[in-house]
């Protein structure tokens, strides 16, 4: 499956994990999400309160970000770095286009190339050992051997959840906030509970993506930041072949039964 693999003098094996297209899409996506987050907080600063339903119940916000005087979100967190709703909107809507087109290109690629089935979908075997994997992760033990050749089941599930649930939810809740699109997508607005609910969900989804980012980075740090970083920049990922130390292979378990 991999393009090629080479042994290293230290006994590890490098193999080609991320095709160029995936690497480019990943980094465009990363930059987009950062810019969308910061310009989004700029927009939220214009009215830092969230509501549930179609309309704003000003005296009963669902979430209120304003505490005392001054902006709800500080200059370092917003784009541009000063109070400017008009520019925040320009950034947000421009980057949203790039983000959507990038995401669509990836979705087409990942389905057409078979990567969705091959690389991202958990195998039946993996799903059967979901519990073990959770325990291993909680112990911060990550596979480095042959097992690391494919994505771990939790990794697969969280990637799928982000790609096919959180990011599309982000786009759809954003779209239903547009008074123009609302004339076409009003049923969807209703599904979200109204325009102000959609705005609240847009924020909560953004928060969930930030949470994913934090876990993503922590996992990279725990699994070997240099190796992980090299693989998403150059495509090459190193593993240490040999017997898995983290736990007994599932085959063995079945034999003893």
């Amino acid at each position: 499956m991999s393009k090629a693999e080479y042994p290293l003098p230290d006994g590890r094996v490098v193999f080609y994990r991320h095709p160029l297209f995936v690497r480019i899409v990943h980094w465009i996506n990363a930059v987009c999400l950062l810019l969308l987050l910061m310009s989004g907080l700029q927009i939220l600063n214009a009215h830092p309160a969230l509501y549930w339903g179609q309309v704003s119940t000003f005296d009963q916000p669902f979430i209120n970000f304003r505490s005392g005087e001054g902006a709800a979100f500080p200059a370092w967190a917003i784009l541009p770095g000063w109070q400017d709703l008009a520019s925040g909107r320009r950034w947000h809507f421009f980057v949203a286009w790039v983000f959507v087109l990038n995401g669509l290109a990836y979705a087409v690629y990942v389905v057409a190339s078979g990567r969705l089935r091959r690389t991202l979908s958990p195998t039946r075997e993996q799903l059967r050992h979901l519990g073990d994997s959770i325990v291993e992760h909680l112990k911060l033990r990550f596979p480095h051997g042959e097992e690391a050749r494919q994505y771990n089941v939790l990794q697969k599930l969280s990637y799928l959840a982000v790609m096919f649930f959180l990011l599309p939810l982000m786009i759809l809740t954003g779209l239903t906030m547009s008074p123009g699109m609302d004339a076409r997508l009003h049923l969807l607005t209703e599904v979200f509970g109204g325009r102000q609910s959609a705005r609240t969900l847009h924020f909560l989804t953004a928060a969930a993506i930030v949470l994913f980012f934090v876990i993503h980075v922590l996992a990279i740090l725990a699994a070997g930041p240099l190796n992980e970083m090299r693989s998403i920049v150059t495509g090459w990922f190193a593993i240490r072949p040999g017997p898995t130390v983290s736990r007994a292979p599932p085959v063995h378990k079945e034999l003893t039964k």
Partner: protein
Amino acid sequence: MNRRNWLQRSLAAAGALALSGCDRIAQSERVNSTLDWAESWTRGVQRVLLGRNALAPEYSEKDISREFRANGTTHPDTDEYNALAQANFAGWKLVVDGLVERPLQLSLNDLRQMPSRTQITRHDCVEGWSCIAKWRGTRLSTVLQRAGLKPQARYIAFYCADTLELALDGTGQYYETIDLIDAMHPQTLLAYDMNDRPVDIAHGAPLRLRLERQLGYKMAKYVMRVAAITDFTKLGRGKGGYWEDRGYQWYAGI
């Protein structure tokens, strides 16, 4: 200087550098004009998806907001306006001119005698909040048909009684422009009633625009004059509206 101190300082310096770099990029003219592409993409795609007649959702009486926030000017403070308001807008007349066959001057009574439309719609402010109210008014298309648009007419301009910013060149006067697709939309009203009462001063008395598929700042309040024009580059600072002149999108469907 110990190591932690050094680390903290370099992090702060890197942060400041990144921030000022960001600001420099955000202020650059070329970057901003690139960002403006998005507006035409959004407008183009929404025009295709919405067509001329897709209606903004309408609501029922029970959905009407108890508190309907008023933004921008809440009381145009000029002698002319105050005099009109004192007389309950009896002397007020809407001027309809520009590229029309028959320029009109319509009193509130004239407008009320024309066919009306009533709609309960949601008002979405660019700041992010929404309120629902019931609006009654004359369709803009009815008024424009009565005046007769000349073939050169491309946009409709609304001139308002309020000045939001005291600018020496007179560009602080509120105005708005919309294209003919929006002008002829069945929900585009010159509204004189809000929640079954004449529109109050905070919400744009005696007449305001309702443009339901776009954001609140497009819906000019205190409308004094409606003019058909070919282009808006010579109005205000040339971007098609008071807020547009200050960086907001001309197409506010998003």
